[in-house]
C-alpha cells in the first residue's frame, strides 16, 4: 500500500505525463480545474491512469468530488484500505 506521499508523487507523475505540468506544481491544495487548468477529458484520463497505478476504482460519480489534489490523495488512500 502506498503512503500519502507516494500517492501524491504518483499523481504528480500522471498529471505531468498528461499535461506537461511540472510534478512539483502538483501540490495537495491545488485545484485540478482552477489551479492546474485540467479539463474534464484530461481529468478522466488522469483518473483512469491513477486507477491502474494504485489498483483502486474511482467511480465516475466520485470524480466530481475530487476538486483538489488532496481530495484525490485522500480518496485513493481510503480506497486502498
Amino acid at each position: 500500500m502506498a503512503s500519502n506521499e507516494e500517492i501524491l508523487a504518483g499523481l504528480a507523475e500522471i498529471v505531468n505525463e498528461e499535461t506537461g505540468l511540472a510534478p512539483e506544481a502538483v501540490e495537495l491544495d491545488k485545484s485540478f480545474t482552477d489551479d492546474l487548468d485540467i479539463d474534464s477529458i484530461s481529468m478522466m484520463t488522469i483518473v483512469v491512469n491513477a486507477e491502474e497505478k494504485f489498483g483502486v476504482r474511482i467511480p465516475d460519480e466520485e470524480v466530481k468530488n475530487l476538486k483538489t489534489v488532496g481530495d484525490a490523495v485522500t480518496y485513493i488512500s481510503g480506497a486502498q484500505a
Partner: protein
Amino acid sequence: MARKVVITGLGATTPIGGDVPTMWRNALKGVSGAHTLTDDWVAKYELPVHFAARVSTPASEVLTRVEAKRLDPSSQFAVIAAREAWKDSGITEVDHDRFAVAFATGIGGVWTLLDAWDTLREKGPRRVLPMTVPMLMPNGAAAAVSLDLGARAGAHTPVSACASGTEALHQGLELIRSGKADVVMAGGAEAAIHPLPLAAFSSMQALSRRNDDPEHASRPYDRDRDGFVMGEGAGALVLEAEEHALARRARIYGELAGTSVTADAYHITAPDPEGLGATRALKAALFDARAQPEDVAHVNAHATSTPVGDRPEYTALRAALGDHVQNVPVSATKSQTGHLLGASGAVEAVMTVLAVYERKAPATINLENQDPEIPLDIVTTARDLPSGDIVALSNSFGFGGHNAVVVIRNH
C-alpha cells in the same frame, strides 16, 4: 471575374524529408523513402509486405510530448506541416473569422481506433481513454490545425481515399472564390502504416511485395511494377486571395488557377480502363484555369506503381492534352515518397508548386524498363522547365472512382 487564389506558404513532413526544403532537395536528387519495417508486428501477423515509407523525421522529434499524446499520428503530421506552411507564408496578422481549414485524410485516426480496440479487449472499457473519440475522428486533423492556428471560417475534411489531398485544394479554392474565406490552410495527412491497413491493402493485391528490395519497389511506369508502397506524412499549402497576398507584399509561389473533381461511377476500386472520369477531371480543371492543353509544361502524375492504375492515367492525359502530351515532362514522385494515400495529393501539390516556382521537375526513380503502353516523357533525373507563362497539373485518383486535378500557374 472570380477572385484569383495564390499559394504563399508550403509545409510537409514526408518519407523523403521532414520539412519542405529537405523534401524538395531529395525530390530533385531522387531518393527512396521506403525501408524494411523492423516492428515486431510484421512477423507476429505474418504480413506479406515487410516494408513501407515512414516519415523521415518522427513526429516526436518535432512536437512536445503532451502535444503528441493528444493527437493521432495523422493529426500530428497535419499540425507539423501546417505550422511549417504558416510560418513560411509570413502571415503575421489574419482575420481569424476569414481564415478556414480544408485538411483531408483518407482514413483518419486508424492507429487510435485500433489501439483502443486492443485496450478494450485486453483491459476492458474503463481503460479506453476519453481522448479516443477526438483522436480517431477523420476531422481530427482539420480540427487540430484549426485549433492550433485559430482558423474560424470552418474546418473542412474532404474524404475521397487517395484523391482526398487534392480535393482539399479544390475545396480551399472554392472557399476563397466564393468569398467565404480570404486565407485557407489546405492539405492532407495520413498515418496508416499499421498492420491492419497493410494486411487489407495486401489482400486486395494493391501493395508491392518486393520485400527483398524496398527502395526499388515503388516503380511507376516500369514494366515490372507490382503495386504501391505504403507511405505516411502530410502536406500543407497556404491559399490566399490574391488581393490579400498583394496587400501584405507576400512572396507568391504561384497561382492555384483551377481545380476539378469528378467521379467515375464505374467500379468501386478499379479505374475506368478508358480513364473517362479522369479525362473529364483534367479537361474541367484546365477549363477552370482558363488554360489550353498547350500551356501545360509539367505533370505530377498520380502514378502509384500498380499494374492496373498507371495506364488509364496515361489514356486520360492523352485524351485531355492531345498530341501535346508527348511534349510534357511527367514526374511520378510516389517512386520516392511511396503512396501517402489521403496526404499524397497535398504533398504532390507542394512539389508541383515548387516545380513551377523554381522551374524544375522532380525525379522519377526506379524506371528501368518503361511500359511500352505508356509512352510518356518521364523525368528520370530532375529537369529544367521552360521560362515564360506555364501551367502544371497534379492528378489524384482514389478508390471509389474519385478523380481530382489541380492546375498551378506561375504568378
